């Protein structure tokens, strides 16, 4: 203990004499620059780990397969910078033929990470629900304007979750007569809320997009 006392004492005394003696100001500067160089030289050069941006949906692709035919109508929406300030581009209009039945599949992609979000949504079907709305009259089945304004309105869901509730990645549509309007797709994340009556105002929105739709 005594040794420590003496050591510390002399450390401080040495420091004091260093400051007190004007001749040794150079030495002080030397020490400061030494400390500084120590600080600068211990800079490392590590880069943040590359992370896969798994969450962001950049591309939404609607594929309308005509039943009993080979035609597939594809409508895409693409947002290359994800959440960035650049706006999403709706690349295609939906153009369908009158009085025809279509099987709609919705695909969600993350083009930055090259991942399919569709599978993730399907795997968590019990927490997700796709709501749909369109201009009244464009479809003969289901009729009406979709379940965004009223959850009880009909939609022909083809898929369901483990609780028997619809999911909406796959749906069935029959077009009406010639007409034009729009088609809106809303994907909600409703963990713990999803039920047979949960509405579009509940949970968090993952997708909310509107396409122009023409039946011609």
């Amino acid at each position, binding site marked *: 203990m005594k040794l420590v*006392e*003496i050591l*510390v*004492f*002399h450390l*401080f*005394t040495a*420091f*004091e004499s260093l*400051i007190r003696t004007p001749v040794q100001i150079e030495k002080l500067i030397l020490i*400061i620059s030494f400390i*500084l160089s120590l*600080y*600068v030289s*211990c*800079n*490392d*050069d*590590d*880069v*943040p*780990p*590359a*992370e*896969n*941006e*798994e*969450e*962001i949906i950049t591309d*939404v692709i609607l594929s309308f397969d005509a039943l009993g035919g080979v035609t597939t109508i594809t409508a895409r*929406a693409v*947002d290359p*910078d*994800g*959440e*960035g*300030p*650049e*706006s*999403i581009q709706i690349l295609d209009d939906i153009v369908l033929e009158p009085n025809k039945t279509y099987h709609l599949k919705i695909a969600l992609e993350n083009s*930055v990470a090259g991942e399919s*979000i569709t599978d*993730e*949504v399907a*795997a*968590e079907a019990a927490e997700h629900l796709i709501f749909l709305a369109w201009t009244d009259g464009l479809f003969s089945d289901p009729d009406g304007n979709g379940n965004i304004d009223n959850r009880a309105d009909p939609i022909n869901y083809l898929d369901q979750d483990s609780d028997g509730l619809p999911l909406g990645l796959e749906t069935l549509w029959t077009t009406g007569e010639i007409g034009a309007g729009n088609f809106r797709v809303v994907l909600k*994340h409703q*963990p*713990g*809320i999803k039920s047979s009556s949960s509405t*579009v*105002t*509940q*949970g*968090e*929105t*993952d*997708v*909310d*997009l509107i396409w122009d739709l023409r039946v011609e």
Partner: protein
Amino acid sequence: MRSLQIYFLIILIQNTLNLTAQNCTYEVEGNIYDLNTRMPIPYVTVQIEGTQNGNVADDSGFFKINNICQSEFNLSISHVGYHKTVHHHDIYHESPKIYLASDEFVLESVVIEGQKPTGDLTSTTSTLIKAEDLEVVQSGSFGDVAGSIAGISTISTGQNIVKPVLHGLHSNRILIINNGIRHEFQNWGVEHAPEIDPSLADNLEVIKGAATVRYGADALGGVILINPPKIELSEHLHGEIKLAGNSNGRSGESTIKLQKGFNRFGLLAEASLLKQGDLRAPDYNLSNTGKNELSFATGANYHLSNIDIELYYSHFSQELGILRGSVVGDLNDLDGAISNEPPQNTRSFSYRIKTPRQEVDHDLVKLKGAYLKENQSFNFQYGYQVNRRMEFDIRRGSNNDAPSISLQLISHSLDLDWNHPQINNLNGIIGIQTLYQDNNNLPGTNTISFIPNFNNSRFGIFIIESMERGMNTFEAGIRYDYQYSSVRGRDTDNSIFRNELDFQNITATLGLNHEFSSNATFRTNFGSAWRPPSVVDLYRLGKNEFINETGLLRFEYDENHNINTKLVSTIEKSTPNEFGLKWVNSFEKYNDRYNLDITVYSNYVFNYIYSRPAGITNTVRGPFPFFVFEQTDALLWGVDLNLFWKHSGVISSLVRGSYLWSKDVSNNDFFVGQPPSNLQYELSFKPKLEFFDETKISVSLYYSFKQYQAPKRIVSLGQILEAQSKGEDLFSEDTSNFDFLKEPEGYFLTNISFRSTIRKFTLLLQAKNMLNVDYRSYTNRLRYFADETGRNIGLSFIYRI
């Protein structure tokens, strides 16, 4: 080498001589005050322990003892009606100021050596919360505790994340000095609170001036100093155990503090544990607002005649939940959340903390040394801090368990300073402060971090001199700072960008302290301060629930003045330092009847960095307003008032208030989220009750005004969506500040507290928001979603060992 040996030998001989020579020429002088009234106590007996040598203080409480034989000794101070106290003193320390505690109180007497324990600036206004007052507010977070000082308000994200706002500035614009060391943490944005447990603190001091010259960059608004108990020598084992519970949140907290001082050696150990469940607004639960907290600290000091060494370690860890109903996916969700009450996902009470939540840890190691000579001292302080922060958002699938922010910040700091001896009436301090920082993103977030990895190296050198001339003390200081930053980050396409940045600045301060009499003081201080743009100001990118922000170095304007976001590496832009000029004046007058303290300040900040609306971006989730970081000039001025009035021995009143005026002067616009004015009145009774030693009952009425300086532009979500459908952009033309919702109305809160002491026990019973008023605070970011907390009954039980 040989000369060094001789040098050691001479020193050794000197030491031996000092110890053996019994030349009784040492002397000590000091002042004695009443701890409670702060008035001098006359005719107190002061004795050198173990000798017959002693003296009696004069009628102004001043004492002097001559012919002392040892260079260090124990002073024994005793007086009728006061606790006897022993103070270990040596000739190297400054004259002690001894505050004796009255017999009526359980409080220990306090000795302060030198001017003030922390402040080196005498012309700057400062406010101190003492241990006793701290006890009343201590259960709150650090931000809440600081918010009980006039001039400080809070900005928060829910009830668990609270940050102090000092004279209208917060986060990177004020400094928090925890136990003498700059608290280095992820200090950006509203959603990162300082990782400090106020229940382990002994006192909290606020320096309201631009104290950059003394404490370094970032102190544009001022400095908050939070100090643990001082480790005293020659003290018996003492401390306290505290158990506290609150009805709102059904929380429990236990704190233990222990201290023992030996002859040359002192020890301190403290620990605190807290568990809190969901809080409750008057009409509904605030689901997922629980909190778990553990903190402990231990310290030791070693004293050897003119050397003091202190080693200190503290740990803080916290897990906190954020209101589940505050999570929204897009503007429609936000619209729904604003009009819905109770918020979505409101459930019955639970202690479980789910996403969204934060986990934070902070460790601090401090080694401090002082070498004291007559009239001067050399100080050395090394600090090592590790700050870890993980933030978990609601995400899909397995990502729900992965943090979306995971950062580790390591800081080393080394401060050296010299309090030089008086030269021609000049007293002063010269110092060097260095800092090295390493910030790293930890892997596993599955999202591209917008905070890059960085290393900061900082160097500062300062000198502050003061001169006394009669009733005036003049003060002047100057400082030079240099910072080098090396930044490595990922762009949106995962490509790597690197940047090297240099910052430097010269700051100065000038002040006057004028004493009208021994109990009336006027202080004025004019100081400059600066802050380099932080990495967040420069590189922020992306959506934060319903706001999309873009940092200074993430965008550019093209020829047509349209905003262009590009990769960071392609952007060249000058980003000048924030530079502030703050002028603070205060008048303080106190006597045994009242205590008045008024502070008036103005602060002009050049190149003030803020985010302003810049347009609408359409994403897969629908339209979002997006904001870009810009620089402007800001003017803030205001008044703080604190008046304590003792009507009789039993009844006293306290009036406290603050007013702030702030504006973006370049754009003639108001800022979003500035704290509104407030006024508080507290009436206290100290009745002499049978059985109780000391009792205090207080009723406090608090009024927070509406923020009349909120931006007048309210853009509702409906308007944004409507404009959207017409193909208009509300923000690309008009870039003035706006809010989604009008500022909330003023509110009135009633709090009642009962504090009573029976010998070593203290009981504290408090009711907050007694009338269960439902209100929303303008500076709470979650005001769009839910009311503030309702009535809370708190009970604390303190046992002094």
